[in-house]
């Protein structure tokens, strides 16, 4: 069964999603255990796969027994395995969180919600693992369709946000598909590695078709990852959807799309093409600088916690896109590391936001008054996430920033470094604003004569175990990933070094 581990990563949630759809309608209590089982198997398989990748190098898995390019294969290398592990872990943690949130927010549609949830995770895992460019599109659509529904199940405005997401998402996915078509028309292949081989064999790097394909795929993926000027769908989607949805999609969707971008640049088009031949690195890095700054500043203007976090995600996307396009090995390593780190730190803050929303029913920042005294453990979890987003050692966020800045400096993109730092500072302002509210809110409650109902009941109390547990685990993971960043980076460097990016720019 060990040989099957890459497939099991995504087949486990898939199978259980179907079982859940069949069994869960009548028996609602069955939903949660099934979800957890599926994701736990997935996490275990991811771990096994990662071990295998470290031991054996790249793992191939041929669906249907057909060798590529004839069949579809999973091709797992260091990059895949890590991102898959991150995705499945985040999904598992969010699932644990969802135990109470889902029945509360989607009253009579629990089994449907969980089915979509698992399928969404399946889609994301599939995107990460597959070695086939077209299969990637199908899986993008699966994760997108499930996202639309998962968001649309939220409040009134969530539906509108989901609609917008649908339109933008379809444009993005279609651009991607078109890009694959442009590749196909020139190479005749769909397997990522085979496309690369064909491009090299036929010397297609100068072809305008390949160039347009590259642009299309990049723009498509940028739309899906909400890269700054194309981000319009994201903030409302993650604000008004159910909290579990935000906690699942917020950390994962954008990261997975960044993975796709990296995969496309490294594996399909080759870094020589993307960085050297096109020489766009400056433009894209500048774009990401603008993205980081604009998103951070927009985040400052928000009064709703979720929305603020949504803009932070957009800023983080800027980090990673910029990091990739620094055309520097360290930048690439930093971006990949940041994918993993950011998945967990966004998860952390979104879980926090979800807890606050379930506890107080409010989304604005003032909902958090005095939480340090009322919900100390929750706040501790949040603090770790916030520190990580700000980039305070020894959380994972610090180290990802470390590598990114290192890449920025060694490639001479000081504007990127500056943007990164400014955004860190803005994050600091954002989070300390929250911390301040949570810290200072407690005292006035004693003296002033406001008779809120909350205060009569003593206000919100510590979140339930099922909500708190994932938050604290995430916080611990953030610290763990931070402290053991060497090990993670070693895997990434192993992967990245084969592309020899550093040599290209010189």
């Amino acid at each position: 069964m060990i040989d099957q581990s890459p497939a099991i990563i995504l087949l486990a949630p898939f199978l259980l999603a179907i079982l859940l759809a069949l069994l869960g309608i009548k028996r609602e209590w069955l939903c949660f255990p099934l979800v957890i089982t599926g994701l736990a198997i997935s996490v275990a398989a991811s771990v096994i796969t990662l071990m295998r990748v470290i031991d054996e190098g790249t793992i191939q898995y041929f669906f249907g027994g057909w060798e590529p390019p004839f069949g579809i294969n999973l091709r797992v290398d260091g990059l895949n395995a890590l991102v898959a592990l991150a995705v499945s872990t985040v999904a598992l943690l969010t699932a644990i969180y969802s135990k109470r949130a889902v029945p509360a927010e989607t009253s009579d549609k629990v089994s449907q919600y969980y089915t979509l949830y698992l399928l969404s995770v399946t889609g994301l895992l599939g995107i990460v693992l597959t070695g086939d460019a077209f299969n990637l599109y199908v899986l993008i659509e699966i994760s997108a369709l499930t996202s639309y529904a998962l968001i649309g199940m939220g409040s009134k405005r969530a539906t509108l946000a989901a609609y917008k997401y649908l339109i933008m998402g379809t444009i993005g996915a279609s651009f991607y598909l078109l890009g694959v078509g442009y590749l196909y028309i020139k190479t005749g292949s769909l397997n990522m590695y085979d496309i690369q081989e064909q491009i090299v064999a036929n010397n297609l790097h100068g072809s305008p078709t390949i160039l347009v394909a590259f642009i299309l795929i990049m723009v498509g993926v940028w739309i899906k990852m909400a890269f700054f000027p194309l981000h319009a769908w994201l903030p409302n989607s993650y604000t008004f959807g159910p909290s579990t949805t935000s906690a699942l999609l917020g950390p994962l969707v954008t990261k997975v799309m960044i993975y796709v971008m990296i995969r496309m640049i490294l594996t399909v088009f080759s870094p020589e093409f993307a960085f050297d031949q096109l020489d766009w690195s400056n433009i894209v890095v500048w774009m990401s600088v603008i993205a980081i700054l604009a998103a951070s500043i927009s985040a400052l203007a928000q009064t709703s916690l979720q929305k603020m976090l949504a803009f932070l995600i957009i800023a983080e996307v800027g980090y990673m896109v910029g990091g990739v396009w620094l055309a520097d090995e360290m930048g690439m390593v930093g971006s990949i590391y940041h994918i993993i780190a950011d998945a967990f730190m966004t998860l952390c803050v979104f879980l926090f936001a979800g807890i606050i929303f379930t506890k107080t029913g409010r989304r604005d920042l003032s909902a958090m008054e005095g939480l340090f005294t009322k919900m100390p453990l929750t706040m501790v979890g949040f603090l770790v996430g916030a520190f990580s987003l700000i980039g305070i050692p020894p959380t994972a966020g610090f180290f990802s920033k470390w590598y990114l800045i290192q890449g920025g400096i060694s490639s001479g993109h000081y504007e990127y470094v500056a943007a990164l730092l400014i955004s860190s500072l803005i994050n600091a302002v954002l989070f300390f604003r929250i911390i301040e509210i949570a810290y200072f809110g407690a005292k006035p409650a004693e003296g002033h004569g406001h008779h809120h109902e909350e205060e009569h009941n003593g206000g919100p109390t510590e979140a339930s175990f099922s909500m708190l547990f994932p938050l604290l685990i995430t916080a611990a993971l953030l610290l763990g990933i931070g402290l053991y960043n060497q090990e993670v980076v070693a895997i990434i460097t192993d992967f990245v070094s084969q592309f020899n990016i550093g040599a290209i720019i010189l």
Partner: protein
Amino acid sequence: MPSSITSFTPVLASLVSLLAVLPIVLLGKKPNLREGATFLAAFIKFGLVVSMLPTILAGSTIEFTVWEIVPNLAIAFRVDGLGMLFGLVASSLWIVTSLYSIGYMRGLKEHSQTRFFTFFAISLSATIGVAFAANLFTLYLFYEMLSLATYPLVTHHQDKEARTGGRTYLTYLLSTSIGFVLPALIFVYVKTGSSMEFSSSGFLSGHITASEALILLLLFTFGFAKSGLMPFHSWLPGAMVAPTPVSALLHAVAVVKVGVFCILRVFTGVFGTDYLQDLDIATVVAWIAAFTIVASSLIALTQDNLKRRLAFSTVGQLSYIILGAALLSDRAVTGSMTHIAMHAVGKITLFMCAGAIFVATGKKYISQMDGLGRKMPITFAAFSIGALSVIGLPPTGGLISKFYLVTGAMDAGQSALLVIFLISTILNAAYLLPIGYRAFFPKDPQLAKQPFSWKTTEEANWQCITPLSITAVLAIILFIKPQFLLQLAGLMVGANG
């Protein structure tokens, strides 16, 4: 070649107060036991630091690598003369401050005392961490940790004023550390590719160009904004909203000293004085420091709030240290290292006095303190000693360090800066001495006529008085016996020469 010994002690010294957090939190409901834990940790820490002293004085260093966290870059501890000096100051003063804060907090019946002591302990841990850091990276880690851990202390009152103060505090410290130090740090890492281990001759030479060096130097100097160098000084007066023990901690023991300590480390350990001399860029810093000295002294003169005046005084005094380092001559560097200790002792006395005054009478403003010396003779006596030490007059330790600084300036041939030293000393005297004078010899004839008697004194509780007396005495002792401090400082400079 000084030998190096591998030992876990420096790590333990840093960790002990962090470990103390657990009992402090758990014993939160029982104040006596809780504070017992604090003391225990403080004494253990002090003991650990002192236990390393002989080794250091013997010319060896103690090293320990904990964790290689980023390729080539480890969290590592290394105790050398400068670190030892600072560690000694910090750990010894923690005991005093702990005692004092117990008095202060109980005296004022402050809320959330458990939280207070918790973060106090964490801050100390970070401080010792900074002191014993072996490389820039570790230094930065503990520096950040200190910034964050002191935030709840600064904003302890949780009122509007505390909110503003805390906001300023964090804004300055975090923005400079993230905005300046971090990029500089990574720049250094990228350029040298080394472990950034401090060494007495620096490790930068040969890796960077002169202009890069200048930028780096400025980034580091301004980046460690805890040193209060203008224009990044205004967090310091802002942070005066904190309870006095915290101010004492901030100004004397932990925060600002960490700032200047870091700058000293950058000058001596990262660039190396020789390299700086070659490049001839330190003068820029020296002049900024000089400007800060004069300007802050002038501002201090105008302040009525005692703590604010002391705060501006601190800004000036810190710049002495930076200036001393920037002069790059052996004596000046020695002076600035010693000044860390001297100023710490002096300034902590002053702050504790200010706190004691507040605890006893609730007075904050200098104009209210006419004749107070008669009610609180011990406090004001200590205050005067502290003031003398800060100004640099005998019989206090301040004189020693100032002497070295001035002679150092002469060595360096910077006669213009010499003038600055003199002017500032006069200004120091001008803003500190009148306080004591007014307290004992009030202008108001009615107050002046009041007879002095021990019975009418309204001193603060003994937990407040004891520590400030101790530090006042310490200030005098340091005048008499400054040798080991000088020896420690000399270890650094000597290795340099």
